[in-house]
């Protein structure tokens, strides 16, 4: 089923607590790519890195604009794709140089 069935006050991004209402408002204002919506609402920038909400946002954009999945650009992805500890990056050099583990 499309997103029409989901009434307002439905959370779409649970990591950043963004509701479908907020997403729809942004789309109405003309922000119609996942990247724009991500930057304005933080939807998809939490722990799971958009794993859950990504498709839901695509569906919302599709439903509001009548565009098909193939015509909606995907958002940009950057490492890390998995939650890692900050210390990992801080220690990155040292660890990576001698860091061949098993």
């Amino acid at each position, binding site marked *: 089923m499309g997103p*029409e069935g989901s009434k307002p006050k*439905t959370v779409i991004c649970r990591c950043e607590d963004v509701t479908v209402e907020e997403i729809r408002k942004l789309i109405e204002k003309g922000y119609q790519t996942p990247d724009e919506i991500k930057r304005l609402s933080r939807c998809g920038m939490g722990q799971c890195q958009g*794993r859950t909400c990504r498709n839901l946002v695509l569906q919302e954009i599709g439903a509001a604009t009548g565009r098909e999945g193939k015509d909606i650009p995907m958002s940009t992805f950057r490492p*890390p794709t*998995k939650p890692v500890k900050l210390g990992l990056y801080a220690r990155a050099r040292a660890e990576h140089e001698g860091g061949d583990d098993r």
Partner: protein
Amino acid sequence: MTMADVIVIGGGPAGLSAATTAAAHGARVILVDEQAIPGGQLSKQIHKFFGSREHLAGTRGFAIGRRLLEDALAAGVDVRLGRAAYAAYPGTGGEFEVAVYGGDAATGGSRAARLRGRRLIVATGASENPLAFPGWTLPGVMGAGAVQTLVNVHRVRPGRRALMVGSGNVGLIVTYQLLQAGVDVAALVEAMPRIGGYLVHAGKVRRAGVPILLGQTVLEASGDGRVERAVVARLDERGQAVLGSERSFDVDTICLAVGLSPWLELLLILGVRTAYIPALGGHVPLHDRDLQTSVPGLYVAGDVAGVEEASVALEEGRLAGMAAAESLGRGDRVALARAKLEVAARLDGLRGGPFGAARREAKARQVNELSGAPPLSPAAAAGPESVPASRADGRAGIPGRPRPVAVIECYQQIPCNPCETACPRGAITIGSPITNLPKLDVDACTGCGLCLTACPGQAIFLVDRSGETATVTFPYEYLPAPEVGRRVTAVDAEGRPVGEAAVTSARMTRKTNRTWAVTVTVPHAYAGVVRGMLRPRR
């Protein structure tokens, strides 16, 4: 820093077979998987797999995962479990760098490493699609994968009464597993007007009496701090809920099985070109015949290349492994060329029949788009069509025949043939392609029942009409164990009770691998009707 010939990310069937194959052709291979258990999706599957014997069909999923790991280790693959790849970068000399990270059980800390490989095979599988509705964030709403982890891996019952959303193979199989775990399934709802998965899998849950509500969806979940209720409604042609058709189910669990999408993150970071192909799960990486993506040296295999099945994942893994080894100048060219062609032919076979046709075309489009050829017909863009059931209900065995005979109720062209290989008499023929319907040579059938427990679809029964009363034998996989002499409620293919019957035999051997063959006596007129029994309450 470690330098390998080939790095494989993902230890599901695709990754493991890719690694094993590349290593068998002389490449130095490192495989990482973030899970501690090998096998990917397979590690959570307790049902007997469909597919062909070559793909270990008829074996239970987790056992396939273990077998594949053993093969990889034997081939000399450096397998690193519990290691997630969180980033991948192009190296300076055309190679790849993969950053991995994982918990360290010994120290309680975590360790990071950076691997370098001349070729990279990404086999990260697919992730579950969400479905948003009011209340879907309440505890008790969970994906089918989570349910499987709880039930099949940790043996924890997720709830007492569940609603299943989605009738694809995943929804059907997980419904069956919930029932086996002792969870009541109030209903299975499906938004489309037809069942998405294979009818043989639907048959198992129907026989257990679970209603499959087509053209309906879950509108809302509610409850005090956790799910207590689910509201289900009918959908009109435009997918809008029909006012006044709402129905409430008292359930504490709502299981979502509404499809999978390829897990593309690492590929996108590396800049692969993608296409949007719904028949394969949405955005998929473009790749050539050898499964190489638009980034030279970067290969894909399995569900990440398009959501299909374990048997396809195994074959694609083999292909990617061979191609990667070949591109490094390993292995024998002629032998590799021949082997690759054979894999391609088997993949065609697996993508035959009405279920596979859309995927086969979609796959061709995926390949052609990369090479600049025009896309194929738009039919490929549509999802897989399921054929309507052409049930020949009430087929009744053979009156007067001196022994039992197999009755095969498998009416869809699916890529499956364990029944054919199981029959010691050669009485069942599927042949090639593997999607052919099974044909029974009634005169050759001795009624031994080996096909009945081998069939992962539980679509084969034995009917004996030689005696004063008839007997029906059906496969059974629930606890408590069936008892000889016990009177049970016999049910038809839809799980509707048809009356009392006595269990005259209940056989389970090592060979039947935890499936019982249960025989009940029934009046002759019911021999074509009875297909199972209600599960006695403990």
